[in-house]
């Protein structure tokens, strides 16, 4: 028996048009905590989905050896049967069921006649809760406990499945410091009991705290595996971002004018929990012709800031001031924000950006129907002409503008979203993850469009979780952490190391 509990050998996984994993190798030693680091989109989650059988055997190339045995998981049940349990970032708990019911979901503790034995269920659950250090009654409903405790319930659920290898995907992303510490201690405690863990994270301090070994993945490839003694922040950051930046971004010569938008002390609270500050006194400005980036890790409040600014579309108890060319404006409703020259292209095209049931033409026109109508009637022909113009100028690949947007590829859908907002003719365009889920060729086109808009004298705010993208296209970059602006860097001074430092800067407590 080797000391490795898991060996993933030469894993390659392709999606249509994208190679998500390429020849990835991962060895995890029994009884250790193994961290996997990488930027968003590097392939960490895909690798874990291959491991846990979410992408079943046959959809990828390569071998998985678990406990010295080559395994071929068809689905997640197969991997769980072997003792591999994955806890996803979005917790998979049913809010209206009790803790005990959630722990034994689809693994019900039955007694006579196949009926559920509630005494046994709650007793077993209490034992498991004690193991994870959660002092709650097993009959408490999930919605009555906080996210930190819910995370512990997930772990208790994993323990109930006799877990040997526990995979945690960004487990502390939604937790406060105290809950995070407790969770990390628990992982170490489980290690003493012989449970091996893989933890996906990009929080370097917590990696240093718990991990025995760190593997860095970038662009779907293993970069290196580092032993605890050799782990340094600099080395990990360099591994995470060190890539060729040339020729992925079109040339951009900034022609920057007067300040066009200034936001002062923008604060927004969580919509359901008004005591939680999500956006914390954010002040930024954008000048005409300038492309300004906002960098931040997941959960830093990037989208929340943009959406709360754009018509108070997110959050509660919103405060702060907005000035356009020095004059204060209000953005309390989306139509008011649009009227005042703002536009926001969402990070989530399918849920917030497009009506996938409708054609290209109607999607482009939707935010500017006033321009196309008189007496409340829309001029169909004019609409067609406008849309067709964008189809040509933006190079939207579709037979005509009557094609339904639901049938377009991600890149073309994004071009429709951009066309919609360009036609609305805003002064400031906020682009949230403008190239998410788009292949490289289309990304280049989107960057060229962004450059052209800036050249026209519009102010552009780009929110992105891909640092190279921000470094490739922006003139100036703000860093956001825990809802606060922790600094701004002109492009000359910005590099992944300096930005990551600001992005991970914690609030002084």
């Amino acid at each position, binding site marked *: 028996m080797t000391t490795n509990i898991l060996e993933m050998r030469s894993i390659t996984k392709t999606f249509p048009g*994208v190679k998500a994993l390429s020849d990835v190798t991962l060895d995890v030693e029994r009884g250790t905590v193994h961290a996997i680091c990488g930027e968003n989109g590097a392939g960490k989650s895909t690798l874990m989905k291959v491991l846990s059988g979410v992408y079943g055997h046959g959809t990828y190339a390569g071998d998985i050896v678990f406990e010295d045995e080559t395994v071929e998981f068809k689905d997640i049940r197969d991997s769980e049967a072997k003792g591999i349990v994955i806890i996803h970032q979005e917790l998979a708990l049913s809010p209206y069921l009790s803790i005990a019911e959630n722990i034994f979901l689809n693994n019900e503790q039955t007694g006579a006649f196949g009926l559920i034995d509630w005494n046994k269920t709650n007793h077993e659950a209490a034992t498991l809760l004690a193991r994870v250090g959660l002092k709650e009654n097993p009959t408490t409903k999930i919605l009555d406990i906080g996210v930190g405790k819910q995370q512990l319930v997930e772990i208790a659920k994993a323990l109930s499945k006799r877990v040997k290898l526990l995979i945690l995907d960004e487990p502390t992303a939604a937790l406060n410091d105290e809950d995070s510490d407790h969770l990390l201690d628990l992982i170490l405690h489980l290690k003493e009991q012989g449970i091996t863990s893989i933890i996906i994270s990009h929080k370097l301090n917590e990696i240093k705290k718990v991990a025995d070994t760190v593997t860095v993945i970038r662009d779907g490839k293993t970069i290196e595996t580092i032993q605890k003694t050799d782990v340094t922040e600099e080395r990990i950051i360099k591994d995470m971002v060190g890539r060729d930046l040339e020729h992925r971004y079109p040339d951009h010569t900034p022609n920057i004018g007067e300040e066009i938008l200034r936001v002062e002390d923008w604060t927004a609270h969580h919509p359901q929990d008004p005591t939680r500050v999500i956006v914390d006194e954010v002040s930024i400005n954008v000048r005409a012709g300038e492309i300004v980036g906002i960098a931040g890790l997941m959960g830093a409040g990037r989208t929340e800031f943009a959406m709360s600014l754009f018509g108070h579309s997110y959050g509660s108890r919103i405060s702060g001031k907005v000035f356009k060319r020095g004059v204060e404006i209000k953005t309390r409703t989306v139509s008011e924000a649009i009227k005042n020259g703002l536009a926001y292209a969402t990070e989530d095209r399918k849920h917030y*950006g*497009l*009506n996938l049931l409708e054609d290209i033409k109607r999607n482009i026109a939707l935010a500017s129907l006033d321009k196309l109508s008189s007496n409340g009637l829309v001029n169909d022909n004019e609409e067609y002409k406008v849309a067709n113009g964008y189809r040509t100028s933006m190079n939207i690949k579709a*037979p005509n503008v009557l094609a339904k947007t639901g049938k377009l*590829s991600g890149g073309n859908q994004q071009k429709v979203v951009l066309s919609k907002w360009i036609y609305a003719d805003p002064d400031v365009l906020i682009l949230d993850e403008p190239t998410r889920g788009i292949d490289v060729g289309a990304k280049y086109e989107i960057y060229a469009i962004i450059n052209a808009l800036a050249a026209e004298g519009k102010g552009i705010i780009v929110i992105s979780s891909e640092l190279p993208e921000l470094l490739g296209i922006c003139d100036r970059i703000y860093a956001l952490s825990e809802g606060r602006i922790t600094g701004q860097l002109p492009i000359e001074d910005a590099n992944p190391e300096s930005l990551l430092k600001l992005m991970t800067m914690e609030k002084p407590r």
Partner: protein
Amino acid sequence: MTNTQTPVTEETAAGGGVRLVENRFTSWLSHLVSDLGKNGIFIALLAVVLFFAVVTDGILLRPQNISNLIVQNGYILVLAIGMVMIIIAGHIDLSVGSVAAFVGACSGVFAVSWGLPWWLAVVLSLGIGALVGVWQGFWIAYVGIPAFIVTLAGMLIFRGLALVVLGNANIGSFPTEYRALGNGFLSNVFGDLELDPLTLIIAGVAVVALIVQQFRTRTGRQKYGQDVEPIVWFVAKLVLIAVAIGFFAYALASYKGIPVTLIVLAVLVLIYGIIMNRSVFGRHVYAIGGNRHAAELSGIKTRKTDFLLFVNMGVLAALAGLIFTARLNLAGPKAGDGFELEAISAAFIGGAAVQGGVGTIGGAIIGGLIIGVLNNGMSILGLGIEWQQAVKGLVLLLAVAFDVYNKRRSGGK
């Protein structure tokens, strides 16, 4: 994700597809196929009509029966117009039958008990319908209670109120002018002739107006460089429609002339057709039903739109109540029973999508006519009400199943 990845997928995803050789025949054929797809519901109606015309030995298409078909289904079609709009926006309205009964009862009080002039009774009744809509729209749009619940409550509330207003008795009989709404015919203006000239004239004007409008749309599109269907197909379609209208008008003219209900319906279809196809409001309704979040983030006032939709539904339900009451010449407690289900069926048979965002006024009208022809045809055949119910249920299920199957085949979700 390396630079070597060329965007080949974009090309193939976006309609590279099969490229037909561009000649007249293939383009003609492709238009025919796409039109058949788009007009599937129309063809279904034709099939149902032909089927019953044959099995009833032509009774279905007798002038008197065609006239009856319109008058008997008028109120369902009025409701279907409002209902399909509600469904497109992603809601439902279960209360329309009860609202129709309630308003019918109120109109009885106005026109009969209080003896108000017929027109005032009609205006007041429509106003009550609007108030009902305001009430339900408030709970749905501004409080945020699902329409299913609000209108389920409304179904009970307004059925109850109808009984309260009637005080456990029927109200009748109504003034002649009021009754014309459900029973009247526009005829004999030129004297009592074998064929009513007015009917034929109106039909003629309608056909001419349709042809002019279609040609103007076509030339407008050509001017903007859009694709139009081949002229042969375009003319053939117009001729077919003109023949259908002509046959229909001849049948009406040789019976009693144009029913008032049909005039009301025609005006409604015209107005609401324009609203849903061409107006900004219509666009907002489709946008909300297709993706509510995206609509909100595009600056659309989704609450206001929802509210107005329910006010509109209230008015149309009131109108349906008036037509029904006028036809029976009686405001009774059982009025409007099951109307909501027929109106909802009409919308779904007519191609509306359960999750919203899809549907047309024309589709709902044809869906309503299919139900009407089924009702009428089965009655002529002497089928009992129990079998009629079962058959209609089956037709609804199959229509939606067909729709779901079609969508799945064409790759939508």
